[in-house]
């Protein structure tokens, strides 16, 4: 048997052993046995002395190639064993992924605040300011500056909690507008504002009445504001709050603050206008009051009604939320049952 045959034989035998090996130690033993100083291959190569100078390099390079091949087989086998070992280890670590996750107990914003937030964001985006004002108001701002003198029959529309003859719980957030109009500097640009907040009416609480509720009232005053602008703005509000397929329609109405005045209906978001219980079969739901600011209101605030004009509108987040989420009792908003509060997690 010449050296080549010997080497070939060692290789075949070793490859078999490597494949059979089941742990890194065995493989290491094989490696030492083969390639170590006293290893089989080294042993064989000692026989090279007896070869002719022509043959030596040929056998040498043959031996090297076998050594490489075996080295490769060893590291491959090692890798294989490692993969196997890891797989076994991970298998042991298997958990039941259907066990519940650890709850994250974050709180919820109140549903009314979610509605108001949505309205605020819409108007901020259109360049409106958000203006706050007192909840305990003067009759002067709550009524008189809004074209509602004492003894005006329209005061009956808003039963009022008085504190003294001149001081009251505001019945609307438009007194904030009266206050803002008085101080706004029109040389610095138009007035565009909304005023969200709590309002109070002298009412007995039941499913549809609450002595406390919320309002968002809006006002725009500039040189060229039209009722068409009002219509366009309210259409945007309706689409933002109730869905982009919504349409609006306006009906004549009366508010002392505005002339012309309108009630604004939005096409029913439940039935799309075909008629259902939510819209009382009409296809429309009343959601807003609006109109062009009455010249008396402008004059009282010291604004030249021949140059400036504008529109105003008011809407009720409570009513919005009731309609949108099907809440059938307005008191729910103020009783703060945790099961109620936690329902509205999709952020409006």
């Amino acid at each position, binding site marked *: 048997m010449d050296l080549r045959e010997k080497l070939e034989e060692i290789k075949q035998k070793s490859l078999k052993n490597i494949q059979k090996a089941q742990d890194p130690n065995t493989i290491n033993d094989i490696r030492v046995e083969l390639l170590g100083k006293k290893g089989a291959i080294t042993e064989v190569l000692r026989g090279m002395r007896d070869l002719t100078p022509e043959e030596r390099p040929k056998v040498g390079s043959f031996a090297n190639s076998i050594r490489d091949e075996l080295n490769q087989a060893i590291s491959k086998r090692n890798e294989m064993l490692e993969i196997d070992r890891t797989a076994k280890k991970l298998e042991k670590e298997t958990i039941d992924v259907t066990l519940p996750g650890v709850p994250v107990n974050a*709180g919820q914003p109140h549903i009314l605040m979610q509605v108001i937030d949505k309205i605020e964001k819409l108007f901020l985006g259109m360049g409106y300011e958000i203006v706050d004002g007192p909840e305990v108001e003067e009759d002067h701002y709550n009524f008189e500056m809004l074209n509602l003198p004492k003894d005006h029959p329209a005061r009956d529309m808003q039963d009022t909690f008085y504190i003294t003859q001149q001081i009251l719980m505001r019945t609307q957030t438009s007194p904030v507008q009266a206050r803002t109009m008085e101080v706004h500097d029109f040389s610095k640009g138009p007035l565009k504002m909304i005023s969200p907040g709590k309002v109070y009416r002298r009412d007995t609480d039941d499913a549809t009445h609450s002595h406390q509720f919320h309002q968002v009232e809006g006002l725009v005053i500039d040189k060229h504001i039209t009722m068409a602008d009002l219509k366009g703005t309210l259409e945007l509000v309706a689409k933002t709050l109730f869905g982009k397929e919504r349409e609006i329609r306006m009906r004549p109405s009366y508010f002392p603050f505005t002339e012309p005045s309108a009630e604004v209906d939005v096409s029913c978001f439940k039935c799309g206008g075909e008629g259902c219980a939510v819209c009382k079969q009409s296809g429309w739901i009343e959601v807003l009051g609006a109109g062009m600011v009455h010249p008396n209101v402008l004059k009282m605030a010291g604004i030249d009604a021949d140059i400036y004009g504008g529109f105003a509108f008011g809407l009720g987040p409570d009513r919005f939320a009731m309609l949108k989420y099907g809440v059938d009792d307005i008191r729910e908003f103020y009783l703060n*049952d945790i099961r109620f509060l936690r329902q509205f997690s999709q952020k409006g």
Partner: protein
Amino acid sequence: MKVSTKWLNEYVPVIDLDRSVLAEKIARTAVEVDDDYRLDEGLKKVVVGHVLSMEPHPDSDHLNICQVDVGEAEPYQIVCGAPNINSNMNVIVALPNSWIGNHTKIKKSKMRGIVSMGMICSLQELGFSDSVVPKKYADGIYILPSDAVPGQTIFSYLGMDENIIDIDITPNRADLLSMRGVANEIGAIYNHNVKLPHPVISETTEDEINNYLTKVSAPANLAPTYMMRIIKDVKIKESPLWLQARLWNAGIRPLNNVVDVTNYILLDYGQPLHSFDYNKMGSKQIIVRLANEGEELVTLDGEKRLLKDTDIVVTNGDKPVALAGVMGGLNTEIDSNSTLIALESAVFNPSKIRKTSRRENLHSEASMRFERGINVATVGEALDAAAQMIAELGDGQVVANAIKVNEISTNDRIVEITTTKINATLGTNLTENVIKDIFERLGFGVQLESGTFKVAVPVRRWDIEVAADLIEEVARLYGYDNLPTTLPTGPTTPGHYTDKQRLIRQTCALMESAGLSQAISYGLTTKAKAQRFTLEKAKTTELDFPMSTEHTTVRMNLVSGLLDDIAYNAAHKNNDVALYEQGRVFFRDDQNDRPREVEHLAGAITGLFNQATWHDSKTVVDFYLTKGIVDYLFKELGLENVKYVATNAHEEMHPGRTADIYIGGELVGFIGEVHPNILKEYHLGKTYVFELDLQKLIDMDKKEQIYQPISKYPKVTRDIAMAVDKSISNAAIIDCIKQNGGKYLTDVTLFDVYEGEHVAKSVKSLAYKLIFNNPEATLKDAEVTEAFNEVVEELKKKFKIAIR
């Protein structure tokens, strides 16, 4: 106002219009429509019956067996229990298989063994409201006139064969509180001519009003116009059925021919009238004046009214006989023996009427119209129409002449408007012709002079005063739907929250991320609850005339409201609740009626903060958990130098488990456990609360957000465990460590607290981790040891600690 379409059709053609189409048109062009309905809708086979004979039911003490002619070959036998039934009268018969009111089907039946072919009906059984059924028939069946024809349908007799449109009138459109006003409006909407009849009065020449009234006076400020007529030899009786039907279809109960006429004219013209029994007046004088304070009058409804000196009264020169414009006096009421009628038609001061009717809670058809305004052009015409009608229906005579005190102008009001202004306001391009046409449809006079309309508005539309009012008329008749849809143009403005608004919203978001849900409680509470948990000494702000005892006083704290919420939850078996509220509280001082409004933040937590899960054990709410939430808020808002100082000064709080919170030396709120007495009152378990003056937090300097380089050098930690007297606070020890830890001490954390059997009763064991770092170099062990020893020495000296 319930509008009879048959009546309306006498003035303007509407009878061919589908009622829902008409209702829709009114709603889209004028005022809201509450309802539209047909009175005989769903009713069937109800006819006139003539009771031929009647005998008592053998097995009943109140039923009668009637033989009734219903227009068939044979009479029907019908059992009837009405007390006012009698033979020879015409009645309402619901035949077998008929439908009457309330979706009720009437079948042939047996009543105590006797066959009944249907039922004899009351008006209520046909669906009439109790409030419109004539008193005489309130407790029995309705009796039809003797000329009613048996077998004929009942609906035309009772005026039920028509459509009613119930319109809801806004305060400015009181002109629509009359049939004539509605006719004018419909004429304008449909561009139809309106034909209104005008009365022709025939007076007796033999008698004159001055024979009855020698003095009539009324100050113009109380009654801008006041008119009166006398009708004599009147026979009081039931009104003809057509007139009664007009009234009950409008929701008014028929009474007698005189009162019914005044109500009919009220509906027709919108002019309230009042009829006095002249013979009960006791004088020949009519003096309108303000009541004397404390004067008394029993009104027609039998109520004794104690009058005030702001009420207008009609007197006989001595005593009040009517609460003017609101309700007549019982002492001059028309009764079945009245023959001589004094009929009043006037305009009364609206704000005085309003004051009286509100105070007395007496809102009559008359007062409602006087308050909102009436057509001053037809005060006299309505009087004439009523006098003539009373004479006709009561076989009497109108005495010659009317008395008229005070003249009120009935001239058109001229309002100017330009086409440009109209289009600039509406965003339209309407032509002069379109606008002119609208004004003319409304019955307004129009003159156009170089682009300016001079519009002559008749006094029946007293709501139109200024140009803006005309713009509304144009807009609504042109159609709101036809207006274009645009968005405001003009200079753009930046829209952003103010710093305060932003911080308030951030605070809310922080509370939510800390696990508290947002509550919105009532701003009005009881006086007791308003005054608890307050951060400031202040006066209460109370309602003058509250609606309920639960909501009388404006709140001065938020915790009370949250406790109400938690109590509501507890009552509904929600025992684990974590709520916060952000809102205003109201502090008033002696000098002001209006309180100062301060933004506050409060929280209330009870029960478990976290439920036990398969993974973690439960977390029970306690002081430190609550404090952690407040700390988190301060940290996130960039507020530093926070101090918690134990206090027993809050009456509503646990004296040993409450702290006032100071930031930079300023008191900003408190935190702690609610006092057991209060918890007992609310039926609650341990509840932890905090109340913070959010305005102060907003106003305070916030920590600058500056990047802190992260040290490249390793930190060194040293632990210290000590036994210390229980009275020594953590805050004091931390202060001491920080003061003596040297410049490389960067942090101190408490990591263990122990009290119990392994230490003496009077002491507690505390363990702290001290962290040292030098950002510029690696700390030497000796440096740390020196600093640490310094700390230990000082703690020993100051607090007599024992190192463990």
